[in-house]
C-alpha cells in the first residue's frame, strides 16, 4: 500500500465507507434530529492538499466529486464535483511560516467543510432543487456535519500524515 496508487486506493476505500459503514456507526438517536453528512473523502483530500500539493488535491477533489455525483444519482451532475474541487484547492493555498501543525490543519479542514456545505446549499437553493430554510439548514445540517467531519479529520490526521511523509521521502529518493 505505497505510492500514488496506494493513495488513490485509500481514497476509494474511504469513499466506499462513507456511504456504507458510517451511517451505521452513528447512533440512530443522533440521526433522528439532525442530518449528518460524512465527507470522509473530502477530509482526506483536504489533508493531501494541505500537506502534499494543492494541484493534486484539486485533481482528486474533482474526480471524487464526479464519482459521488454519478453513484448517488443526485438531481444533477456537478455540485459535488465543483464543491470538492474548489474546497480542496483552497485548503492548500494558505502558507504558514512555521509549517502546519494539527490545530491549523484542523481549522483549515473545518473551514473548508463549512464552505463546502455552503456551496452545496447555495447551488441547491439557486436551482430550487431543495429549497430549505437557511437557519434550519445551518443548525440541522451544517453544524452537526462540521463537528462530525472535524472528528473524522482528527482520526485521519496521523495515518494520512505518515503516509504522505513516506510518499515524499520515496519521491525524493527516487529523484536522487
Amino acid at each position, binding site marked *: 500500500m505505497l505510492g500514488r496508487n496506494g493513495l488513490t486506493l485509500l481514497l476509494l476505500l474511504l469513499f466506499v465507507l462513507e456511504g456504507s459503514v458510517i451511517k451505521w456507526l452513528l447512533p440512530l438517536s443522533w440521526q433522528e434530529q439532525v442530518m449528518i453528512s460524512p465527507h470522509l473523502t473530502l477530509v482526506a483530500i483536504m489533508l493531501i492538499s494541505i500537506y502534499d500539493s494543492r494541484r493534486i488535491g484539486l485533481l482528486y477533489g474533482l474526480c471524487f466529486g464526479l464519482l459521488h455525483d454519478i453513484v448517488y444519482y443526485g438531481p444533477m451532475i456537478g455540485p459535488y464535483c465543483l464543491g470538492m474541487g474548489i474546497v480542496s484547492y483552497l485548503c492548500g493555498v494558505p502558507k504558514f511560516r512555521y509549517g502546519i501543525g494539527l490545530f491549523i490543519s484542523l481549522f483549515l479542514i473545518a473551514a473548508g467543510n463549512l464552505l463546502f456545505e455552503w456551496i452545496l446549499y447555495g*447551488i441547491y437553493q439557486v436551482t430550487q432543487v431543495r429549497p430549505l430554510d437557511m437557519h434550519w439548514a445551518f443548525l440541522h445540517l451544517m453544524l452537526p456535519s462540521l463537528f462530525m467531519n472535524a472528528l473524522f479529520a482528527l482520526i485521519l490526521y496521523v495515518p494520512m500524515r505518515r503516509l504522505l511523509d513516506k510518499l515524499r521521502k520515496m519521491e525524493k529518493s527516487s529523484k536522487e
Partner: protein
Amino acid sequence: MFKLLGNKKIVVLLISLIVFVALMGLTMMRTGMTTPEKMIKDTVAWTQGLFYRPAQSIAGFFKDIRDLRDLYEENRVLKATLSNYAKDTMKLNKLESENKNLKELLEFTERQKSLDNYKYHVAQVLSISPDPYNGRININLGSRDGIKENMAVISVEGLVGRVDTVSELSASVQLLTELDATNNESKAISATVKGKERSFGIIQSYDPATQNLIMTNIEQTDELEVGDTIITSGMGLVFPKGIEIGTVVAKEDGDFGINYVAQVKPVATFRHLSELLVVEVPDAQDTEIN
C-alpha cells in the same frame, strides 16, 4: 485578489465555473443514466454492498445487547399475538375462498383478478447517500432482476420510496423524504385512510423540519381524523394499493381554506435500512397511465 491568484488562474477559474454551470443545467433535465454512468455506479455500489452488511451486523450486535432487557417482555407479548394470528389466519383463509367465489360469481375478468396479485422482490441496501440534500439509497437489484422505474419500495414497516433509476445490477431508490411538490421529478402518492376507503388525499411533499409528510387535497366532508392510519389508494397506479404510509398527527386548513391539509408521520424509518421489498404490479405497462 488579482495578486493572490494571478491573471491566468482567474481565467481558468471563470472558464471552469462556466463549464460547471452548463454541466449542471444540462444534467438537471436528464431522464436516465448513460452506459458509462451505469457501469461506474454498478461497480461502486457492489463494492459498497460488501461493507454494508458487516457494518450492519456490528451495529446490530450492539443494539441487541441494549435490547436484551426488553426481550422478555416482548416475547410474552409476541406469544399472545401469535395465538391471535393463528385465529386470524383461519378467518383469512375462509374469507379469501369466499372472496374468490364471489368474484367468480360476479364474472371478473382475468386482468381484474390479477390486479391485486403483487410480486415482491427482496432487495438488500448497498449504500445510503451521505448527502443530506439527496435522500437516495442504492439496492442490489437491477434491470436484470426485473426491476423497473417507479416501482414502490417498502420495508417491513411501510412505504419507503420508489425506484428512481435502474442500471443492470443496481437501482436507486428515492426515499419519501425527497417528495417535493415543486419538483417535476417527484411523483405524488394518492392516499386514503385505512378502514375509511372513501376518503382521499394526495401526499406530495415532505417537511424536513417536522419530519412529517404533507397530505393535501382533503375534501371538507372527508372523515379523516387525527390518529388514522394512511395507506396508498392505488389510484395513481404508480404505487400498489394498501401499503401503509403513516399516521395522521395533525389536520389543518389548507392554503385557501377550501381543502384540509394533514400532517402524516411516516411509519417506516429512513435511517438504518437493511432489507427492502420492491413491489411489482403485474402488467404495469398495460395499466400505466402516467
